[in-house]
């Protein structure tokens, strides 16, 4: 199956709530969540409701939450936060909730498509990411994409009674443009445009099938 048919991103909505909550209640998933690992299920649920809740369509958003979808259903959550329209910058968080697809291809495709959205649609100049040092698969995606590790915050986060480092990455527009050129050459169907076309075709097939 071609990669293009496996990973989509779309706006998250209320119907996704139970799926996202089920991921976030998984201790294995919580390990990678930013913030206090001792938050209660109720606090997590309230946080997610706040994230997926309705926003004024006329307001300039300071954050966007996107679902990573596959042919088999939602696989993860992707957020663009602290969006600054003055600095043309934002920070990205990417969580793969579905363990069965927690591999580099799904995460890498979701990351690439979110970068296309951030740079080519939202006209960002810089995307930042903060990643725990023990989350090697995530920071490897950043480095393979051309992002630069700009910060190393020593002993910054506590997990399982131990302190871990945190890395700060910066991905600037010229670095993204190099990545886009590389992807366009190797995976012409991996563009956001191709993704939207595939989604429309999939929806049409599902409607036709009743």
């Amino acid at each position, binding site marked *: 199956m071609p990669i293009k048919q496996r990973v989509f991103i779309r706006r998250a909505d209320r119907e996704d709530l139970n799926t996202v909550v089920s991921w976030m209640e998984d201790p294995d998933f919580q390990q990678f969540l930013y913030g206090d690992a001792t938050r209660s299920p109720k606090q997590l649920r309230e946080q997610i409701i706040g994230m997926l809740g309705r926003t004024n369509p006329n307001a300039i958003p300071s954050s966007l939450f996107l679902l990573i979808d596959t042919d088999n259903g939602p696989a993860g959550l992707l957020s663009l936060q602290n969006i600054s329209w003055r600095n043309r910058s934002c920070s990205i968080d990417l969580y793969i909730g579905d363990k069965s697809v927690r591999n580099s291809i799904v995460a890498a495709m979701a990351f690439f498509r979110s970068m296309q959205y951030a740079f080519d649609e939202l006209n960002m100049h810089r995307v930042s990411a903060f990643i725990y040092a023990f989350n090697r698969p995530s920071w490897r995606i950043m480095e393979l994409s051309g992002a630069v590790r*700009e910060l190393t915050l020593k002993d910054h986060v506590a997990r399982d009674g131990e302190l871990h480092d945190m890395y700060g990455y910066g991905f600037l527009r010229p670095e993204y443009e190099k990545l886009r050129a590389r992807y366009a050459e190797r995976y012409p169907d991996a563009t956001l445009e191709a993704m939207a076309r595939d989604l429309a075709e999939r929806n049409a097939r599902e409607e036709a099938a009743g």
Partner: protein
Amino acid sequence: MKVGECVHIRMADPDDAEALVRFYDPTIARSMLLDVRRELQYPTADELRETLRSKEVRAGLLYIIEDDAGALRGCCALKPPAPEVTYSEMLFGLAQDEDYAGPIGDEAMAWLLASAFVKRRLSKVMAQCLETEAGYRGLLARHGFTSDGVQREVVYTGGRYLALETLSVVRDAYLARRPPVDAPTASNAKVVSPP
């Protein structure tokens, strides 16, 4: 409260708004004016007054740095640490750039670090510094801060992007280099205990 030879520190109150608003000078990019999105904030005196009425500020989040004559020379703060960690981010700004190299900067910084490591027993204090704040960076370095890295092209102001450096000092390093009480500091001032 006098904290050295020439610096007085006190909690900010709403009456400081008129004096503080001059500190928010749009021609000078200061890291302490950055919000969570890394945008420079330039509030009006009314907005500052409202902020200074808030419970958090009244509880001692923001401190005013004054000289012997009672003139406002700057302000500083330690952000409350998150529950799971024992580090804090500091905010520190002086109205006059030359004060970063003199006793005003040294005495106020010594007091803030003592407050963080001796009184609050924090494990780490972090600070952020724009590439244009050479004086502030020098003050941080004199007080033991080392660089954690530089975020490129983060803040857009004056028609160009500025880099933002993150620096930190950990408790062990602070205690190892802290002069004994009553010994002279770099600025020939006395170190006094935090409140």
